């Protein structure tokens, strides 16, 4: 894949007031969306909640939403990102590799761009991705702790896009889709 075709994949699977929904957006290194997929909202009944208990949420998130989303995506990104660390293992199991959870932090900037700082046992690290921002917290799945191999791509993309910003746009996109479907 040449330089112009590099892409990141962003995954969200959320629950709001008993309704589960997921979305995937693949963007290029400018943050321009190349593919956007979302699922119908899923609202389990009270009976299903009682019968399946805690397993229900896990099943919905991983087997129903995540699996269908990943099947639908046609562009394979260089790195998958999620916000919730709980999604790291299921994403890896579904073949979405390499994957990292990525978060904004309130830390002061590290000394120079590209500097990393380990965050202890969880495997997380802080990365100073650009010259004027707080470092990002990156967490790999337990099975694949090699984050450093991905740093060149992250630093390259951070020059032209905000690495965490697509999550905000996906949230807005889901709101828009929901509004449009209510009106339809």
């Amino acid at each position: 894949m040449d330089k112009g075709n590099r892409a990141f994949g962003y995954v969200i699977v959320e629950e709001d007031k008993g309704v589960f929904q997921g979305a995937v957006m693949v963007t290029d290194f400018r943050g321009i969306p190349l593919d956007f997929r979302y699922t119908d909202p899923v609202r389990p009944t009270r009976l299903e909640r009682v019968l399946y208990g805690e397993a229900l949420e896990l099943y919905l998130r991983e087997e129903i939403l995540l699996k269908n989303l990943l099947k639908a995506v046609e562009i394979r990104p260089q790195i998958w990102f999620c916000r919730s660390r709980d999604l790291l293992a299921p994403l890896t199991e579904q073949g979405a590799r390499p994957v990292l959870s990525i978060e904004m932090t309130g830390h002061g900037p590290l000394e120079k761009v590209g500097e990393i700082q380990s965050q202890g046992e969880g495997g997380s690290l802080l990365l100073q991705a650009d010259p004027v921002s707080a470092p990002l917290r990156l967490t790999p799945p337990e099975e694949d702790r090699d984050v450093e191999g991905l740093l060149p791509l992250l630093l390259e993309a951070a020059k032209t896009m905000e690495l965490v910003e697509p999550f905000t746009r996906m949230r807005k996109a889901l709101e828009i889709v929901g509004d449009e479907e209510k009106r339809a």
Partner: protein
Amino acid sequence: MEKLARLFAGRVPVHSLRLPERHLPVLSSRSDVPLHRLCLTPPIKAARFLAWKRLPARTTALGPLRCKVACHGVPLMAGVSVSKAETLLAAAPPCHRIPSSRLVSLPQSRTNRLRYLAERWKPEGASVLALFSPIIKGSLLRSALDKQTGSLLCWMNPAPGKGDPFFLLLLSKGGQGGQRTMEWVWLPLPGE
């Protein structure tokens, strides 16, 4: 014994007993007892997991190239190679196209990073009010400052193209008569 038999032979009348005919009613213990089910037609509710298994993941066309969007294996943007990983394309779920005009018009947002600039750069005769980064100047179609959040909303040209990333600063400059004016200034990123 034989003499006695001769004496009484024929003397003993034998009668048959005839009972008058009576019609006695025969009663059966059987009766029609109504049976009631506790629940006549129990409703059966099923979990919808099977239906969910087939949950369609919807797609939307993006940008001016939306005519190229297809549900079965065509990439959205020209020139983007599609890696058909077995795990991802084992089954093609049904896709639906939806109106995408509003999605396409979704701007990217850039947060104000002024506090990270610190003392590193101070323009003469002006103070920096906001710093947004990174923005590819050549791809920026339109921008607007969101006064509620302080973010800059950027509508980017989705067409593939090369462009260098810049800082965009909002400066407050002292003008004539003590009046201050606002000015937007582009600065190249360090190292670009």
